[in-house]
């Protein structure tokens, strides 16, 4: 994805993922096979569950459901799309790059695809939590697996 995306295009990407999220639904298959993390916040209305199906150190499926604002819906939706099919090390690397971007550190934009539309989040500090709520849930699941395998 070119880094020279115009604000207009970035806005459109966020709105598309907010209005027509592809991964905002409960797991279609057997829910019990999914890892799930419930995320909510005292500071805002967001209240979502992130579901991840893992097998052989790989993210097989990811989706989420609940109540969330534009930024958290779009960022979590984009995240799910990015993660499906990735190995754990790949997934962890992407999460790390995303967090670096959000916190205005050096990051590798090549692996973030559409998620780079959140590059300006730090300018609206109150929204950092919205842009990371789904990603934090995923990270928790990845960490959990990492420990189990040790």
């Amino acid at each position, binding site marked *: 994805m070119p880094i020279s995306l115009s*604000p207009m295009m*970035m*806005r459109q990407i*966020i*709105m598309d993922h907010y209005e027509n999220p592809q991964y905002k639904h409960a797991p279609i298959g057997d829910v019990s096979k999914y890892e799930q993390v419930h995320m909510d916040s005292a*500071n*805002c*209305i967001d209240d979502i569950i992130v579901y991840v199906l893992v097998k052989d150190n790989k993210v097989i499926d990811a989706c989420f459901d609940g*109540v969330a*604002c*534009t*930024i958290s819906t779009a960022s979590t939706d984009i995240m799910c799309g990015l993660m499906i099919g990735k190995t754990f090390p790949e997934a962890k690397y992407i999460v790390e790059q995303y967090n670096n971007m959000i916190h205005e550190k050096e990051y590798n934009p090549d692996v973030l695809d559409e998620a780079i539309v959140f590059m*300006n*989040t730090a*300018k*609206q500090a*109150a*929204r950092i939590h*919205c842009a990371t709520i789904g990603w934090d849930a995923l990270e928790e699941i990845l960490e959990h697996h990492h420990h189990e395998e040790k």
Partner: protein
Amino acid sequence: MIDSKKIRKDFPMYENHIKMQKHDLVYLDNASTTFKPYAVLRAEEEYNTRFTSNTHRGDYDLCFFNDTKLAEVRHTVAEFINANDDEVVFTNGTTMSINLVALGYATKHLNKDDEILLTVSEHASNVLPWYKVSQITGCKIKFIPLENGRVTPENVQKTLSKHTKIVAIAHVSNVLGYVNDIKAIAKVVHEAGAIIAVDGAQSVPHMKIDVKDLDIDFLSFSGHKMCGPTGTGVLYGKAKLLEETDPVFGGGGMNVKFDTDVSVKYLSAPAKFEAGTLHLEGIYGLEAAVKYLDEIGMENIEVLEKNFRKYAISELKKVPDLVIYNEDAEAGIITFNKKGVFAQDLATYLNSKGIAVRSGQHCAKMLHHYLNEIATVRMSIYFYTTKEDIDALVNALKNGGHFLDAYFA
């Protein structure tokens, strides 16, 4: 008449020309907290620079001075709400005041057959302390149905039963801004043999309150919502009820004696509720705030806010796709949404224009049962709000372009 522009000279948050997102700050979150005038800051500073010492049993002049001063502040606050001096307890805010009533009075007097009445529009601080009472005593919690957002004496009457011991409601809802007819409600509550505990956080700063005329049993309010320091608050209780309330905190300054046989004799109210060193600088600041408000006049503040509310409503109604949830309310709290825009997204957009409003559930997490909305945006005014503040909000809502622009500014 109050000249809001002139009055701003009393407030460092205006005199310092505070900016937000490179715009002059437009502060419309006064239901959350308020700005402090220089007079309040001076009073706090005075304690720290001229009168530092503790209260209680002072053997030296400074301490004696503070004991006297504390009594004076209590008197000032008592006069402000037409209470007697010994009916005013200093707390750290509305939340602590309500918890004192719940834990100190309700858990002592209620049992599993009793009922406490609340409404779905109450703030967390007027719900969770009562839930705690229910968990401890087994008493039941019931909800008075709202009538177009209001708590009416008729609906209170209908919900009261012979088991009702306490009715705990806000004088003014922090989301809907309706001013409940506490005098009429107190009357039906008392006729049923129950007591009324009023959350005054959103009323005491904005209108003249006379606890005797309203016949309120307990009234809780915060200093910081009325130009006073954070960490200050008041619990008013009728003398007899305070006497029947147990202290929740034990410590210095609230007991007469205690001994190894686990015996203790407490001081009488209000001292028995004020264990430990009080937030003295804050309390002196609170006195300055009360005097400041008194000088402006609570009646003047009420009239001014009503006029600003009318103006704000008439302007907000011109904004396309704006849904206002409490057009007919009295207090300076206006709650709205823009169709198709999530409340928090709208609030962030307004932040990018330097406008401070609040989004979400505003701590009234059961109100969605009434509003059928998950989240709303709330603007709230005070006597230093100007017409320009409201115009800035309306302009931002009207001419904002896309609400996500904030994200790419």
